[in-house]
């Protein structure tokens, strides 16, 4: 086979030309047809977005005191490099574990995931300044480590209205699925309880971020773009921090340290305070150390006694029985003899005071909380009428206070029984007359009752929002009071009840709530249960000649007698409402100051003989 050399050269040339054409077409494909795809890939390569959480809207109390705000805190992030080997990540994980006091394997896993997904990872959040400066040095050794400043939720009062305010936490998978579309990121925190959860959409601003140019090692080269955040909307609450603190402190200092306290303004239904104990420190849940945060979450007492705890109201129910009796035409002057017990068809019902109260009328009956008097009153009035008043005061129904987990409590009466297919007996009427039996109420409901007793019949829907100041310039949302119902009772009946409640405090079972200079009315209660009785106290107060401006309900779980354990808490709250110092506390403070002064004087005397050191020896 003989081929001319010229022809062979041509074949060679065409082979070369063919290769050139293939390469040229491939270039055109990459650079002209697919340019958008590769541009994007190059952009992904070189830029990393570091999100910065926006400052969350603040909570203010009714006087403008900040309840929840934001603080600058450092977040440690890792920007993965290209082509980073596992062995390069290991020393970094070890070093970080040492600095942060965490498990190196866990950190390594986070680093590797970030490397696989080629996206920035948050290694630690809410770092205090000191730790942040220590970590700053790592930046020079390990590429890819960066610190950014972010807004972190901060609660200046610490343990304060914890259940009402709530706390911030990580999303669970379901919450994450629901919020994905709303601009949340997997590592976003959301309000998990109380108002933080309720106003999540208002409080949450829009996260900002910084688009950084990074090199192949993950080192930040420069900032490409800064996306400003938008702060969230501020929410002004009806809470009065001083009353709230009095409630929190008072419950915490009570015999068992467990219970609930609610204060409402009887003029408009503003919730002035809502406390549930045991409570928690919402700041601890945002601790930089994930171990500490995790422990706090695990030990979190999420149960809000004020709305989710339903207990028999005990004697605090007696004013309602009285109102029902007067409406049914029973005379307040009619008196009954209390020998310490009541006999119903061979069944003995005891008065709380087995010694008996002797002859008892309405005022004495209420002031001494005589059970026998109310047994008689109840029988004369009829259980159906009392049940009607239960409903009028809003018992057995949720107040719809817009907090998650509210309970409705249980109505108790012949109609309820009938609906349940069971009969009603006189014995039940006796139990109902003293607030026992199947009747249960929440502290919030009882506070609403106290407010209605104070304002002569207006049942408000309780609320805690005064206004929402929207960050985006929408007109403010201003909460207006909402009336649930009006109790139909004569002025004479109201006078009798209110006068009776005042006597309870001035000379009856509620004397420990007495405050000179204020008109305080109240009722003690003791809810029987399987263990030690729960102590109740409801009260309202005002300056003489003015309408009452605070109504409270206090429950000390297993606290025994309401007058002893619950009333002092209510007293502290009322004092706080009127800006009055607690004379008892003042006396104690005076004594403590005097003792401290004496100790200081003794110490000063003892310190004199110490010889002076030469100047150079100091330090």
């Amino acid at each position: 086979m003989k081929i001319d050399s010229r022809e062979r050269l041509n074949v060679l040339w065409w082979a070369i030309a063919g290769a050139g054409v293939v390469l040229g077409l491939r270039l055109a494909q990459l650079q002209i047809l697919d340019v958008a795809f590769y541009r994007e890939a190059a952009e992904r390569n070189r830029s990393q977005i570091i999100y910065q959480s926006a400052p969350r809207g603040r909570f203010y109390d009714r006087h403008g005191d900040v309840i929840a705000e934001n603080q600058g805190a450092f977040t440690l992030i890792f920007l993965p490099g290209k082509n980073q080997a596992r062995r390069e990540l290991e020393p970094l994980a070890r070093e970080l574990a040492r600095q942060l006091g965490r498990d190196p394997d866990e950190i390594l896993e986070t680093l590797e995931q970030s490397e696989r997904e080629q996206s920035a990872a948050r290694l630690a959040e809410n770092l205090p300044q000191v730790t942040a400066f220590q970590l700053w040095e790592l930046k020079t050794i390990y590429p890819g480590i960066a610190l950014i400043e972010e807004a972190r939720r901060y609660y200046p009062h610490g343990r304060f209205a914890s259940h009402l305010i709530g706390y911030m936490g990580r999303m669970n998978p379901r919450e994450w699925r629901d919020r994905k579309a709303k601009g949340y990121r997997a590592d976003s925190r959301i309000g998990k309880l109380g108002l933080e959860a309720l106003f999540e959409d208002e409080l949450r601003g829009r996260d900002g971020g910084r688009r950084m140019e990074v090199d192949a090692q993950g080192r930040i080269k420069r900032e490409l773009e800064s996306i400003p955040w938008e702060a969230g909307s501020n929410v002004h609450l009806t809470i009065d921090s001083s009353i709230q603190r009095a409630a929190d402190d008072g419950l915490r200092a009570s015999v068992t340290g467990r219970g609930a306290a609610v204060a409402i303004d009887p003029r408009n239904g503003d919730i002035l305070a809502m406390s549930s104990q045991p409570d928690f420190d919402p700041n601890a849940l945002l601790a930089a150390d994930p171990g500490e945060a995790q422990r706090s979450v695990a030990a979190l007492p999420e149960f809000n006694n004020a709305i989710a705890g339903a207990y028999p109201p005990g004697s605090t129910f007696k004013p309602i029985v009285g109102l029902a009796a007067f409406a049914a035409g029973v005379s307040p002057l009619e008196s009954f003899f209390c020998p310490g017990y009541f006999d119903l068809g061979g069944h003995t019902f005891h008065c709380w005071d087995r010694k008996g109260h002797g002859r008892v009328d309405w005022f004495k009956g209420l002031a001494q909380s005589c059970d026998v008097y109310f047994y008689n009153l109840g029988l004369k009035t009829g259980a159906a009428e009392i049940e009607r008043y239960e409903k009028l005061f809003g018992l057995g129904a949720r107040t719809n206070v817009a907090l998650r987990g509210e309970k409705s409590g249980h109505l108790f009466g012949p109609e309820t029984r009938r609906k349940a297919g069971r009969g009603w007996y006189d014995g039940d009427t006796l139990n109902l007359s003293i607030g026992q039996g199947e009747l249960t109420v929440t502290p919030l409901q009882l506070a609403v009752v106290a407010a209605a007793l104070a304002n002569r019949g207006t049942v408000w829907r309780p609320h805690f929002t005064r206004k929402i100041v929207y960050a985006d310039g929408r007109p403010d949302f201003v909460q207006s009071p909402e009336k649930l119902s009006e109790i139909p009772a004569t002025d004479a009946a109201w006078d009798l009840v209110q006068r009776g409640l005042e006597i309870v405090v001035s000379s009856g079972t509620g004397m420990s709530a007495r405050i000179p200079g204020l008109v305080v009315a109240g009722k003690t209660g003791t809810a029987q249960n399987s263990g030690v009785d729960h102590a109740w106290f409801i009260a309202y107060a005002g300056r003489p000649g003015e309408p009452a401006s605070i109504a409270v309900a206090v429950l000390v779980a297993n606290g025994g007698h309401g007058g002893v354990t619950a009333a002092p808490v209510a007293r502290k709250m009322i004092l706080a409402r009127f800006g009055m110092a607690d004379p008892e506390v003042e006396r104690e403070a005076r004594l403590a100051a005097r003792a401290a002064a004496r100790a200081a004087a003794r110490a000063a005397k003892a310190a004199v003989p110490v010889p002076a050191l030469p100047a150079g020896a100091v330090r």
Partner: protein
Amino acid sequence: MNSTRTPPGLSSRVDWTFIAAVVGLVATGTVAMLSAASTTLFYQSILQKHFIALALGSSLFVLTLAFNYQIFQDQAKILYGVAIALMAAVLVLGRSARGHRAWLRLAGFSFQPAELARVLVVLVLADYLDRRARRAGDFSTVLTALAIATPIVLLILKQPDFSTALTFLPTITGMLFCAGADIFQLLFVFGYGALALAVPLVITLCQVRYPGAPSGTLPGFILAASRLGWATLTTVVAFAAVSAAVWRAATWMRLQIKPLAFVAAPVILSGALLTGIVVNRSMKSYQRNRFVAFVAPRSDTQGAAYNVIQSKVAIGSGGLWGQGLFSGTQSQLGFLPERHTDFIFANVGEEMGFWGAGLILGLYFLLLWRVVTAARLARDRYGYLVCAGLASMFAFVVTLNVGMCVGLMPVAGIPLPLISYGGSSLIINLFSLGIVANVYARRYALL
């Protein structure tokens, strides 16, 4: 009109188009190198070395152009001796870098002699094939030519530099083809080489895609054959049996085919298979990774595939006009590996865009066209063969490098001639192109 005409002779005979292509490539390469190396630690020293090499290479180009190229034919034996001595010296005295013992230190410069050896092999083979012109069609010519190159290729494989050794095959094939070797013989030789290369590719593919293939399946059989056991023997026997059967069929149909073909076919198939299996077993891990990256680019984004992906991203993101010199993010932020050496074409693609990359391809096109023209116009068969060999060599190396950058070829560690940074490579390429210029300038038998 023009009173200062250059003295009749050399100047008018020099191929200025060719020189323009060379200058254009070197200039583009220098610009690309300036940008690509700007983020490296030794930028100053890289610049220095590049310009010194450029000066040396240009001088060598001019020098090579000045004397008659036929001296290379006269001194072919010495050249061959030099080539072998150089490669042996590298193995004995050479400096190791990145796993290769491929560099010689020479007066402060690192010198990579493998490329010089390749050019020398072209010169030596051209001499041999010129002398064997009458028996160009003999199979012995092909075998002798391969035998001449084999010691040098083996020495290069010993470094080990698989990629450079690989470039010998197309160079030699191109020369044999242009020398008038029998097409079938060449096909056998080339098929042998291609098969020997394809076998490890197929084995790697099976290892990656079907790691635990059962023995009844084709991948399972291939994997079994790769372990040099009964499956291998069965395949070899099958080759022989099928060949014998076809021979009988051809005889029966009275087809005029040389009986030798039916002996050669199974021998070559079996030989290539065995060679391929041996190559597969002796591959270094980084070489294996390159194969893996080629057959399954998504499987390993850390190793060799990472380079190819980043290279494609760099080229693609350049678009029509490029990101501008010194502003390609892939190059300047370090995502593109080997950006001033093996992957410099990706840097050009990113920073100068389609026009820049196309310009380089165009200049190569022009250059190779002039080299082929030089071959066509050469005054003797020796010059013709030298130019054809160099054209094949340049064409293959450029295709391999650019093909690697655009993801059409497996990763091979060879530089892009005249563009990539590398002193010895630049000098030797300019030297070899000087020879081409020389052949062209002396195309008339008179000088």
